[in-house]
């Protein structure tokens, strides 16, 4: 199995507080990798580091074996076109409607005729399970769940091979969250995506993730879902063996 994304020895500090202390992680092609951790464990900081939005004090990130910092500007642009990101609050551009939001990365990276641009944007909107007339709405006119899906449509605009999701189901009702999980599994299968997902949602983890990485004490412990369930680390035990987790596992027979 090819390694899609890897990080080695990541160190991030804010003043005296060390968030990551030599963190290692690997994401393999075609899997859904969940990142879990307590509040303040540095999940979002890790995501920002992986995306190059924040430079770590030490350590390196590699996409398909290549360090983004060693790439030429053109190669870096091409690398960015190969992954899509959704942010926690959606981060849709409020002054653009959904279609224009989806078209923005296309206009930036591709040269497409107007008709293809229009149809492909509406197609992406349909792909994430929104009605086509949602394409003409502005973010302020969309519900919370629709914003999440709209953000996913924008992340898929360039047909990426790698998808980063920051708490995609937070703020959704259980039905909406479950539907989002199914959507993610469907898209992952259809578009052969590799997904890196930060989440707090135990349902989501049990339903979608192939492997889970838990950030504890500045390091990452990653394993398959079964493996992580039997990990002796106290925090991981509390997280996955807690009452809430046990109740949720039952219906899936895990």
């Amino acid at each position: 199995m090819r390694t899609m994304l890897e990080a080695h020895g990541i160190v991030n500090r804010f003043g005296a507080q060390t968030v990551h202390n030599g963190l290692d992680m690997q994401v393999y092609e075609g899997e859904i990798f969940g990142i879990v951790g307590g509040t303040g464990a540095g999940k979002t900081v890790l995501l920002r580091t992986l995306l190059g939005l924040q430079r770590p004090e030490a350590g390196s990130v590699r996409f398909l074996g290549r360090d983004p910092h060693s790439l030429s500007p053109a190669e870096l642009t091409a690398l960015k076109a190969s992954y899509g990101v959704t942010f926690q609050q959606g981060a849709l551009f409020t002054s653009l409607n959904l279609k224009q939001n989806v078209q923005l990365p296309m206009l930036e990276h591709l040269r497409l005729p107007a008709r293809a641009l229009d149809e492909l944007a509406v197609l992406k909107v349909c792909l994430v399970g929104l009605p086509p007339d949602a394409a003409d709405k502005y973010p302020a006119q969309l519900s919370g769940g629709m914003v999440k899906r709209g953000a996913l449509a924008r992340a898929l605009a360039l047909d990426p091979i790698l998808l980063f999701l920051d708490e995609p189901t937070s703020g959704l009702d259980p039905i909406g969250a479950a539907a989002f999980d199914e959507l993610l599994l469907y898209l992952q299968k259809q578009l052969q995506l590799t997904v890196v997902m930060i989440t707090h949602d135990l349902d989501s983890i049990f339903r979608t993730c192939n492997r889970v990485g838990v950030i504890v004490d500045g390091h990452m412990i990653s394993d398959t879902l079964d493996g992580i369930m039997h990990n002796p680390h106290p925090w991981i035990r509390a997280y996955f063996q807690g009452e809430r987790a046990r109740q949720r596992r039952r219906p899936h027979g895990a």
Partner: protein
Amino acid sequence: MAEPTGSASPAIADRNGRPRLHRTRHDHSVDPFLSAQRDAAQLRVALCGHWRAAHFDDIESALNSLELTGVRRATIESGAAEMDLAGAWLLREFMRRADQAGVEVGFAGADPPMLRLLSRCLAGEAPDETREVHWIAPATAVEEAVEDIGRRTVHGVRDARVALRFLGEVTLGLGRILLHPSRLRPISIARHIYDTGITAVPIVALIAFLISVILAYLGEGELRQYGATILVVDLVTIGVLRELGVLLTAIILAGRSGSAFAAEIGAMQLNEEVDALETIGVDPVEALVVPRLLGLTIALPLLTLVADLIGLAGGGVLCHVLLDMPTAQYLHRAQGAIASTTFWVGIIKAPIFAGLIAMAGCFNGMCVRESSRELGRRTTLAVVQAIFCVILADALFAVLFLRLNI
């Protein structure tokens, strides 16, 4: 990029054992994306390579170069192509073109999964009639003009009502504070005095000095022709105290603080912080608008005082340099030039201007809805309205004082 060339080739090889590009007698085209083979009325197209959005133009021209005249049946073989949705869209376009040309199109083997996904999305969830809704019959020029006038009128009336309502709310808020002084927020007011007043002292002082320089130079050039250069002192002192000190300070604050008010409150609106205040039971007008209004009303007269002093001092320096006038003579002449009312006529305008600037800034901030573009538009509008109102009020004051013979 990040095109996994390494993994693509095995995937292609194991589908069918033959080479990706096969040249034959009747080849029409061989290129990285497809190879076509023509046998009388039969066209066989084998797709290969990366059918991805990045190569959109090349794939499109490759498809367009396929000759369809005289073809009755076309068979597409897609197993070797790695396709994304943009590629599938192009293939669908080609199939549609072929269909219109009367060609029977079919797949050898399975159709590409991306095409299936695309068709399902476009057909199942986006039937054509739902998309047509957005192309309502285009309006004629006359209809458009009428609609535009109507829309502007409705918006104008609505904006006026909103502004009036805002004015009322602020008045009520001020009234409540007057009745219950405990609701005053002194810390917040102090912060706004600091932000709008104290931090603005350097720029106000600098501009007041430069204005007195401009006045002195201008006056010296003109008045020298009449041998009345001593009147430069009158020009500078009366000009600065009556008009320019307060007017320029107000304009600086309109640009500096009016925009800050609009942007701060507008960003809070976008972030739903204003709604949060309301639900907590705090009146946003009382918490956000009144402290800014009072803060600026205190800061602007004080800044005007600074501007007046620096302007007069600058006039003294300039008279010394330009006219060789001793400072004592400048002061004596200045005392003769200004009436007891001159200073008050200027400074009395300051709180009024402050009110106009704060109201324009806060009102536009409160009006921000939905988008970051709206924030920018409202901030601009706040500054424009503030400066316009200040200058309009100054003109009215000029007429008023003339009538009152001050």
